[in-house]
């Protein structure tokens, strides 16, 4: 027993004295719980609501007031015509629309069925349905109260739900995952593999041999990193081909633009990989740093699986510095909505700036010498 106790105690010392591993072991679960807890919110909050009210009357105004009064919805536009909804949805300015039938109040008073159409952007099927139900619930509640107040006479409001899967007509969740999947694959290839490759040289001692040669740092960096650029690119094509052939996921927009943005994202990830490896000389640490610094944010905060709008504002704000978030938005736009550079230039600009900044930092952090 002595021996076993001695061994246990020794392991305890090892763990306590290895600061870095300790930090990861303790902080990682805490961080993960927070991130996962907050990001897996399938609740609906702060939904952007557009109203189509061709002929406002006391009933529609009352309904509009009721919808606005809940903290679930935020009325972003009130439009006279349903045809004006399309651009709002396309720009993602509105997620749900309520369309009132003309002369709603009159029909109600005369006991005729009065229809209210609820249109939701079902690019994300789960939340789309949830939003619809919420809107319906609010309207139905108001309706019940009205009838109770009026003694049960008159007609009722009929809710006509209309989930416009316009941006995802086949309701396939795989369509949604493909852009996120691309981001993840690229992150693994570009960031993690680059970081591992550079630190492996340091571990085997061969980095010394490279440094002492006439090779300039930028040559060494490009020499190590270019293969992963090529592999990443092939990875993008592979994912797209697979998605197309097996899951019939379309690319509605320009393929060339998609590949171009893919290249840009790879560049950002590569630079991140270099920055990570510049500070560490052990592969183990580089691996963990890459996991926490690139993979985790890509999976959790890019909108890949969990919608960003449902997260609390600190996380939403954090998501903005995750390159994958921008790429996923771009990829979804191109693939599922067919948007072009005209709409996507802000996101592209963000990625370009990220690429430039990270490349500059990585160039600076790559040492000409051993220290």
């Amino acid at each position: 027993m002595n021996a076993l106790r001695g061994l246990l105690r020794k392991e305890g010392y090892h763990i306590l004295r290895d600061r870095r591993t300790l930090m990861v072991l303790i902080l990682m679960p805490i961080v993960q719980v927070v991130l996962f807890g907050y990001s897996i919110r399938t609740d609906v909050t702060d939904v952007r609501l557009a109203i189509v009210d061709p002929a406002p009357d006391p009933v529609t105004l009352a309904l509009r007031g009721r919808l606005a009064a809940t903290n679930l919805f935020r009325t972003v536009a009130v439009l006279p015509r349903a045809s004006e909804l399309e651009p709002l949805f396309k720009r993602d300015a509105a997620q749900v629309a309520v369309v009132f039938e003309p002369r709603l109040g009159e029909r109600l008073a005369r006991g005729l069925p009065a229809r209210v159409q609820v249109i939701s952007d079902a690019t994300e099927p789960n939340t789309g349905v949830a939003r619809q139900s919420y809107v319906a619930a609010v309207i139905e509640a108001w309706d019940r109260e009205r009838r109770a107040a009026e003694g049960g006479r008159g007609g009722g409001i009929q809710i006509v739900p209309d989930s416009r899967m316009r941006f995802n007509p086949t309701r396939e969740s795989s369509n949604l995952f493909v852009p996120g999947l691309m981001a993840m694959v690229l992150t693994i290839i570009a960031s993690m593999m680059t970081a591992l490759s550079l630190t492996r040289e340091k571990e085997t001692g061969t980095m010394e041999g490279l440094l002492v040669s006439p090779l300039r740092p930028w040559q060494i960096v490009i020499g190590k990193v270019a293969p992963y650029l090529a592999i990443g690119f092939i990875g993008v094509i592979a994912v797209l081909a697979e998605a197309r052939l097996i899951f019939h996921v379309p690319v509605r927009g320009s393929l060339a633009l998609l590949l171009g943005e893919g290249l840009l994202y790879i560049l950002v990830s590569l630079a991140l990989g270099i920055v990570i490896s510049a500070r560490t000389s052990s592969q183990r640490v580089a691996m963990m740093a890459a996991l926490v610094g690139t993979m985790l944010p890509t999976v959790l905060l890019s909108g890949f699986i969990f919608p960003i709008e449902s997260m609390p504002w600190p996380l939403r704000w954090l998501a903005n510095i995750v390159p994958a978030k921008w790429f996923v938005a771009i990829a979804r736009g191109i693939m599922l909505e067919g948007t072009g550079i005209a709409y996507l230039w802000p996101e592209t600009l963000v990625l370009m700036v990220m690429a430039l900044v990270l490349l500059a930092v990585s160039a600076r952090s790559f040492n000409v010498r051993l220290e």
Partner: protein
Amino acid sequence: MSATPAASPADAVVAEGLVKRFGSTTALDGMSFQVHAGELFGFIGADGAGKTTLFRILATLLVPDAGTARVLGYDVVSDLWALRQRIGYMPGRFALYPDLSVEENLRFFASVFGTTIAREYAQIAPIYSQLEPFKRRRAAALSGGMKQKLALSCALVHRPDILFLDEPTTGVDAVSRREFWDLLAHLRAGGLTIIVSTPYMDEASRCDRVALVQRGGILAIDTPAAIAASFGRPLFAVRGSDRYGTLRAIREYPNTGSVYPFGEVLHFTDARAATPPAGAARELESYLASRGLAAAVTPTEPTIEDTFIARLSAAQPEQAA
């Protein structure tokens, strides 16, 4: 320690007051020396003496905290790109790519310097010819001696003007070590300046000049013969059957200056400076006989190791046996 003579323009390496610290540890403590062109120069010392740090500074991989160094006339800090074209460097652990073959390793290092194996074949032939039968074998599968030779070929393939070899023979068996030094002698004969570090004292005698290093400083710097001869006092070999018993007895002998095992015998110096050698030897023999130990005490020529031990003990009395 003698003052460093003035450097001449033909010196391949000139170092002045090199200091390097890592946190609270001082690796180099004001080292100064010169290496002449065409020399086979050895740095002899234990682990932690500062050899690797010194080599990294000379190979432009580290910047000293104080002091200067010039290699082939170039400053190691400001002229690093010019130097990197001209020096060959073999770091400890050989810095080979384990998953590349012999040939692929060599080809890589050749290409990095803008040349090819074919072009430099004559230069590296004596070494590479031994590796060629195995040129497709992965470097990880080579024995220590073979890795050594490959690393040397890679360091030579771009025809450097000076070669830095950091502990190239550590952990390699005695035969491979000998062969390696034969190769070095051969290269030196061709005019190449070679600077080697090693913990093996017997290799010191194969150098033109040697610097004994300990704790970041130089204890002695001269030809091996001169260092050995600088021992400064009579040295005796004590040969007896019960080596350990004899050792303990001599420890208790009042006139012992130093005693330590040395191969088959014990090396002994008498603490009394004035006693003639013959007398000191006889006295020791009779002392040992009185303890029941039969031993023969004869004068012997000091080697470089004896001098190193003497200098070390003087520098660090708390460590002396």
